């Protein structure tokens, strides 16, 4: 019974509800309150790691909290095992940086923005930490409901269209998840994940397949894999840039966590291997990855291009996870970290540069490198990382994913990864070359001094925003050189993924 896990979920929720009250007192206290709250959250996350450090090193970590004191089959429990710890830490720290960026970046409707953002934060932590199926469904729906207004934040036609499309797809995905949960309850009689996992083998074969297929379609919709990806480019490009970084970088990783948790721990992945459905998952993810890279080639808008690139990479990660081998998991987890850092950094950097340009089409991108050379160099470094050039972490994760594919003799998958990074060179270079192009400025415009002003008018806000982008670049290079530091966390996750018996024993045995 470790209350720190509960605090990880409660603190963002509390902040979200307190912000309107703080607004009543004085509007400018809001950002300080937000900053204090994310610091407390980060402190609690660090405290969990430090308190259990030797257990983490021996990969025996297992913390839990029973809500309301109800014992296991009857109540909801929050579980932290190595997988949950990994994802939860990633979410906490990346959201820390994104929220600090937002303090500097968002200039209007901040109250609504922070409330929604903290609700998403609480929902994401809840999804990762929960041990109960219906609780997970509630949190997933909360994410969908609170992120749609954030997509429509700019209140113009394009954003509203994008938000409606996103909401429809999310609700449909949630609906299939709900159908799966109902059928598990109907067959097994319990909603607790460990109990369902223990009794899953005793259901009839047809019912098992039906549940697996329904959950699978739900995850494919949420992750943006090929036939169901139509919401992704529009949603990720119509929202303000910090929300793009959140949706594209962080949120998809939470859905990857649910993908792993449900298909490996609750349902039995060996059934999927027996009927050959894993081949289907691998091939459709690889095809989706290829299409994502091809569509990025023709994207005229930089944020759409980055969104298509996300489809490409998430397809690759899903295929690597579906291989069900040690090397595959290793590569996929390393690529989750790499893609999170690089894509968030790219969205944040690009958002800053195009802030006061009229649109984000490629024509508006001309000559933008000279607005702020430092940030543009960061964008070049992050793009090199996405392509896969050492010493940035994108290269190391590409190496391990390729190794994962080749060790399980999936030569086509490895070839598609290579083709993906080659097309990535073409579409990233297109925008970089466009940005470096020199633009002729009329002399009277130049005299008016527009081009010498900083992009965000308040001094400290500009500093915060540029500092966060530099921080992402620094992290990307440092984790690239020291990528072995992720060896212990990732290797402690892998035995538990391949064999879920320990998870069940820990929960039911208690």
């Amino acid at each position, binding site marked *: 019974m470790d209350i720190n896990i509960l605090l990880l979920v409660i603190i963002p929720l509390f902040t979200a509800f307190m912000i309107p009250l703080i607004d009543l007192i004085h509007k400018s206290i809001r950002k300080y309150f937000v900053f204090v709250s994310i610091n407390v959250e980060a402190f609690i996350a660090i405290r969990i790691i430090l308190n259990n450090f030797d257990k983490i090193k021996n990969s025996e970590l297992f913390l839990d909290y029973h809500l309301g004191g109800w014992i296991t089959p009857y109540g909801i429990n929050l579980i932290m095992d190595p997988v949950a710890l990994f994802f939860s830490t990633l979410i906490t720290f990346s959201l820390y940086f994104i929220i600090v960026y937002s303090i500097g970046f968002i200039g209007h409707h901040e109250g609504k923005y922070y409330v929604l953002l903290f609700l998403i934060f609480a929902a994401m932590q809840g999804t990762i930490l929960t041990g109960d199926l219906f609780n997970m469904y509630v949190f997933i729906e909360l994410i969908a409901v609170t992120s749609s207004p954030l997509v429509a934040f700019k209140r113009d036609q394009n954003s509203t269209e994008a938000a409606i499309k996103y909401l429809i797809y999310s609700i449909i995905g949630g609906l299939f998840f709900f159908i799966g949960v109902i059928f598990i309850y109907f067959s097994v009689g319990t909603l607790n994940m460990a109990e369902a996992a223990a009794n899953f083998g005793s259901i009839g074969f047809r019912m098992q397949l039906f549940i697996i297929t329904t959950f699978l379609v739900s995850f494919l919709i949420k992750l943006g894999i090929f036939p169901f990806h139509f919401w992704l480019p529009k949603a990720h490009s119509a929202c303000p840039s910090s929300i793009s970084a959140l949706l594209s970088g962080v949120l998809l990783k939470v859905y990857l966590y649910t993908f792993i948790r449900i298909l490996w721990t609750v349902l039995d992945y060996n059934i999927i291997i027996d009927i050959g459905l894993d081949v289907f998952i691998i091939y459709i993810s690889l095809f989706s990855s290829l*299409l994502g890279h091809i569509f990025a080639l023709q994207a005229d808008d930089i944020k759409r291009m980055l969104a298509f690139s996300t489809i490409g990479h998430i397809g690759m990660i899903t295929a690597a996870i579906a291989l069900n081998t040690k090397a595959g998991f290793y590569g996929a987890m390393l690529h989750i970290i790499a893609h999170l850092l690089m894509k968030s950094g790219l969205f944040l950097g690009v958002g800053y540069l195009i802030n006061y340009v009229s649109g984000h089409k490629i024509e508006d991108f001309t000559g933008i490198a000279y607005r702020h050379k430092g940030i543009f160099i960061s964008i070049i470094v992050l793009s090199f990382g996405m392509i896969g050039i050492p010493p940035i972490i994108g*290269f190391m994760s590409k190496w391990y994913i390729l190794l994962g594919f080749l060790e399980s003799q999936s030569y086509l998958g490895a070839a598609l990864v*290579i083709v993906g990074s080659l097309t990535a060179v073409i579409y990233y270079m297109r925008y970089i070359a466009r940005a470096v192009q020199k633009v002729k400025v009329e002399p009277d415009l130049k005299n008016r001094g527009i081009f010498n002003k900083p992009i965000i008018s308040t001094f400290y806000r500009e500093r915060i925003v540029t500092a966060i982008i530099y921080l992402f670049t620094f992290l990307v290079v440092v984790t690239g050189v020291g990528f072995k530091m992720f060896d212990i966390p990732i290797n402690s996750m892998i035995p538990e993924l391949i064999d879920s018996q320990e998870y069940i024993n820990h929960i039911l045995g208690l």
Partner: protein
Amino acid sequence: MDVFDISEIFLYNDFNIFFVLLGLFVTAATSFAAYDYLKENKFWYYILNIFYILGFFMVITTQSWFVFIIGWEIVTVTTTFMIIWSDKKIARQYFLVQFTGSSILLYVILLAFSMGYKTIGVIDETWLQSLFIIGVGMKSGIFGLHFWLPPIHSKAPAPVSAVLSGWVVKLGFITLLKIIAGPNQFLVILGFLMIFLGGIKALLQTDLKVLLAYSTISQLGFIAVGIGSGSTYGIVGAIFHIVAHSLAKTNLFINSGFLEKEYKSRTIYDMNKIWKRKPVSALTVIISLLSLMGTFFLTGYHSKHFIKYAFKGIDYLKILLHGASILTILYSLRLAWWLWLKNIFGKNKKEGEIKKRNFSPGEYGYSAILFLSFALLFTGIVPNYIYSRFFVEDISFHFLDGFINYIVYFIIAISILWRLDWIKTKEKAAPELDDIFKKVNNFLYKISGKFLEYDTGVFFESYLYNSIYNISRGIYNFIYTDFQIQLLWIPTLLMLLYMWITFII
């Protein structure tokens, strides 16, 4: 997950140290030559040079595949940035080509890694060796993947061309030396194709740097033939030829930069009587060309002789090698004629006299080319200096065999050239990488019978990018239709999955 013991990553045996020192020597020479040649961004150029040295150090001395590919990517990125200040388009094309090569190489390395070859060493399976040849091929100009070499090496600024053509393309062959231990037919065939293709094209060129680029392809063919022969003499010959060609080609490219600045044009017909205007350049160009031809007392002689001796039993290959040597002498002598010897006893005494020099290489430039020529002479006169590092056996053939061969080639070459009036062809524009893609694309579209409008209004986009953009836009428009049809995918796929698990499983 992989071999990562830090004490075993780098291996400092004689072989590696020798090549690192050779690379350092060649790179130092180009840095010296660049001191007075480049006018701007010198500081960043030298910083990039330092990282480039680090890169190829990692490539040559490492035993771990991981560090190897990291080193090679560092070489790619730094050489791209070295080109970027003179011509952005060439830098983009060069980066794309090199990255394709790196990607193929990464695939093949990981294939070997997953098969059990965890360190760089001899690979037994022939098909895996052939895959490695293809992987290294794009970066080292092997036939079939060599199309990028003449456009890019000729348009880069002269010291960077020297670096690229003199050392970067050799890195692939140094790796092949470590991997291939026995005879490899694929490499021999490719090598001969490279020699003849490069040589014949070099005979027809009028632009000095394009000629040198084709000559690079030709000489790399010799190295490939030497490695593929599988015998000790072949490998010794390949190593000697790597030394000879690096020194000679670096020298020639640096001098091409000096000559271009002096005569203000790149055509070889405009550069005449260089021994009057630039005597030091003239001397060093002659020494390098003589080494390429295989004159005795220069390193090229030893390398060609060793490679010929490696095929001592196989007659038709020996005839091909004789032909290759004649071809090399043909184009080198043609170049020497147009630069040096034309009108040497001339009717027109005024030609070549100048009032003032356009360009002076400066003391660093002079020292660079003189040191390179001296190294050529040294390794030629004292071949044991290199030979004794690798082998302990005695050389068992006589030097004079090669001497007689050389005189025969020389006489044949001079008579052919005299007949053909020293092959003065028409001047044409330098080759562009874009043209190759245009031809391929037009061919494909003629076959498919379609006709597409190309959007050429966008500034800065080349033909390749436009065609890729149009193809992907076609696929996009095909898939993205109505919102309702997009939503329709969900129930379609769901029904298909349900029917599959109901009826088929």
